[in-house]
């Protein structure tokens, strides 16, 4: 064998771009939940169905006379869907959107994120990620050869007697500004934020926008929970701020919008000079998205456009229902001594489990963050699945906030009641001798 062939055979078979991105918290926790949990408030998906009008649209699409809906559609987005998205988001942004160039459909918001990083992040580019963050941002930046730069939301003590709110977790403006450098290509914004549920205020968005404009940085704006805002709060789109449209890609999700996470339909909205590059990535990676679901989502949006602002709109009903569920879970947790951080948005809630630490003793020099061990113990021993907050921090920061766990409350009343029963029983066990 030649020396060069020997060298080749001793190299790993996989590409270097996979270095350090093979671990994934969900693979482990989803398996644990499947094995042990009786009440799964872990992974973020509803346990109630999508609305009837959407399911009916899906059945109409798959069984209708037009069997061509089972064949390829337009690669960058099924025409009825991109048209209605352009109309709907044009209305929200106060802008004329071209369905062919300002909108692109993706396989879930996940693939939209992938396209953004692949299209814009080259080796050596820095990307600012706000912690805690939806865990895929970091490996996606790395896979694109970029360098993630983290900046944390820091909790401020709530007013006396009040429960902490996600609004109490804030960026330090000076700290944020220090993260921008010549190498900064983009910042990833997620509002409403998973896992905290924070809904960035206009002031906070302006802070970010000013820095983006000053440093000529792109904004990848993950807005999948855009409809899930509570207490009369407003979801503000950073792309509508001065100087931001030209440098922002907005990402949305039918899964979160219509409670149909298994359909994997997402989209990007933005200026053509940015979307053209997303189209290049898309046409060289998946090319087309499934047709039937796109047709159904288009009809869903058509209905919502007609019911815009009316009480029967799903975008008004869903947050109303979820707010009740949020309040229910907040109450449950507060009653037993887990301290909830009341989320302003999303269907996630983070709680401080410090008072339950006695159940899971500290293991000094453990590689695993405390909250991860706690969450694993909890699902195995109490049957209640949740996700450790450390899952949403980079490796170096996993122990900064390691006594919090995240619950998903997009669940039927029966599920939340069952969770409450587990928590009550647990508390009783702790207080009785």
């Amino acid at each position, binding site marked *: 064998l030649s020396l060069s062939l020997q060298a080749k055979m001793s190299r790993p078979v996989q590409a270097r771009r996979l270095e350090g991105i093979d671990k994934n918290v969900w693979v482990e926790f989803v398996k644990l939940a499947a094995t042990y949990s009786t009440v799964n408030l872990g992974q973020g998906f509803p346990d109630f169905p999508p609305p009837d009008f959407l399911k009916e649209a899906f059945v109409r699409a*798959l069984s209708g006379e037009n069997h061509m809906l089972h064949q390829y559609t337009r690669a960058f987005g099924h025409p009825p869907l991109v048209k209605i998205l352009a109309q709907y988001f044009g209305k929200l942004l106060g802008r*004329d959107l071209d369905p062919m160039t300002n909108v692109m459909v993706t396989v879930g918001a996940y693939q939209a994120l992938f396209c953004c990083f692949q299209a814009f992040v080259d080796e050596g580019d820095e990307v600012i990620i706000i912690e805690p963050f939806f865990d895929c941002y970091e490996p996606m930046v790395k896979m*694109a050869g970029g360098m993630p730069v983290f900046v944390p939301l820091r909790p401020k003590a709530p007013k006396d007697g009040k429960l902490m709110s996600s609004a109490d977790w804030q960026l330090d403006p000076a700290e944020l500004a220090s993260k921008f450098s010549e190498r900064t290509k983009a910042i990833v914004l997620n509002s409403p934020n998973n896992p905290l549920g924070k809904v960035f205020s206009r002031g906070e968005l302006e802070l970010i926008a000013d820095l983006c404009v000053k440093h*000529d940085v792109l904004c990848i704006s993950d807005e999948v929970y855009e409809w899930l805002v509570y207490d009369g709060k407003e979801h503000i789109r950073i792309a509508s701020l001065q100087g931001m449209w030209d440098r922002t890609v907005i990402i949305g999700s039918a899964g979160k919008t219509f409670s149909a996470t298994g359909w994997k339909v997402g989209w990007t909205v933005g200026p053509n000079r940015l979307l053209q590059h997303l189209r290049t990535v898309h046409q*060289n990676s998946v090319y087309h998205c499934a047709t*039937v679901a796109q047709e159904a989502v288009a009809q869903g949006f058509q209905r919502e456009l007609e019911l815009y602002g009316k009480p029967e709109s799903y975008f008004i009903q869903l947050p109303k229902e979820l707010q009740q569920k949020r309040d229910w879970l907040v109450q449950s947790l507060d009653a037993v001594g887990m301290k909830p951080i009341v989320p302003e948005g999303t269907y996630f809630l983070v709680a401080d489990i410090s008072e339950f630490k006695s159940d899971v003793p500290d293991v000094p020099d453990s590689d695993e963050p405390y909250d991860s061990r706690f969450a694993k113990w909890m699902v195995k021993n109490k049957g209640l699945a949740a996700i450790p907050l450390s899952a949403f921090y980079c490796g170096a920061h996993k122990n900064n906030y390691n006594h919090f766990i995240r619950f998903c409350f997009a669940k039927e009343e029966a599920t939340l009641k069952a969770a409450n029963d587990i928590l009550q029983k647990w508390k009783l066990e702790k207080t009785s001798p």
Partner: protein
Amino acid sequence: MLFASRSFCCRGVKAYQLRTDLLSRSIKLSASATMAFRHKNTRRIEGIDSNVWVEFTKVAADPSIVNLGQGLPDISPPSYVKEELAKAAAVDRLNQYTRGFGHPSLVKALSQVYERVCGREIDPLTDILVTVGAYGSLFSTIQALIEEGDEVIIIEPFYDCYEPMVKMAGAKPVFIPLRYKNGGNPASSADWVLDPAELATKFNSKTKAIILNTPHNPIGKVFTREELQVIADLCIKYDTLCISDEVYEWLVYKGNKHIKIATLPGMWERTITIGSAGKTYSVTGWKLGWSIGPQNLIKHLQVVHQNTLYTCPTPLQEALAQAFWIDYKRMDDPDCYFYSLSRELESKRDRMAQLLQEAGLKPVIPDGGYFMIVDVSALNVDLSDGDEKQPYDYEFVKWMIKSKKLSAIPLSAFCGPETKRQFEKYIRFCFIKKDSTLDAAEVILKNWNKQPA
């Protein structure tokens, strides 16, 4: 300010053009108002932005054109496949996320079908990845296993995405053409062969993989065992991977057998075999595909998948699983869709060939797949006043769409730069079309010489 909604109802190309013009003007205005914009595309997508399909599917979207271009069926998928999708969508849980690497019932069904075909055990959890179409499998495989410094051998003509995907991974495509070996009459896809000596020269220590497509798009060649052995021998000698695109695996015609290169000795451990629901069940719009191979390779594809789109749609996967169970149970029965579709397509193939021959053309009869290539030189269409930089077949297809209202795909779209001129008299027709479409094509071909050029 929104445009009047009627512009959205109008499906004509003109309305879109008007909107695009107005939009691009407004972009220019805002661009001049802001500072210089430094954000261009990344290096990895440099030069891979154009795409033959984007160009030709747009043109053929006109319903007055008989569309034999893009490879999509206009026949209906089998009714039980649609029924299974309706059943799946009615189950609440099946509208939410499923297992990232593939819905459990689907990977189980795939493992059963392919265990039977391959004659070996296939672990549904570690040896299979479900992807967004075979396209997604190609992407996951190339991103997982190919990088800068690697060479990847691509056999020409090739399904056009192989080249840009290899480039996007930073690697160098190395081309080798199928060459026409003058043989029987009429020409068959079997007459297009690789020269073993020439193939051997393409392999070196940098060769990471060879991409094999059998049955082959666009020619329809079904590689024989001997031909596969030549490739396998080189893969083993040079410790090269084989990415085997077998999306048309069930579409092989009488006298031919689809052989999986992964079943040859020494090949399972170095081969990723790719399949497609779209081609298997005539549901290209479902965009489900799969990669099958040894765990130590598939695990890297899974890492790519979990960092690109994480999971594929659930109800489609469930429906596909159920369809597979139905056909798995009747794999000994001629009514199994895998065989019945093939028989249906064989008669369409024969009809297509006849139509082209009667028009004075020489089609290459495919042994598999649902495409047919044909040399259009005999038609003597003079396009010398067209764009000289464009290959002849590009100009020919554009002219044919415009003046004959019949679409096809130029073969040079499937060739590397050195070989484009070699194939520029060929165009590709797709024949997975209903009878009325083929009837309409027949009318055009019969009347070809009656109309002025």
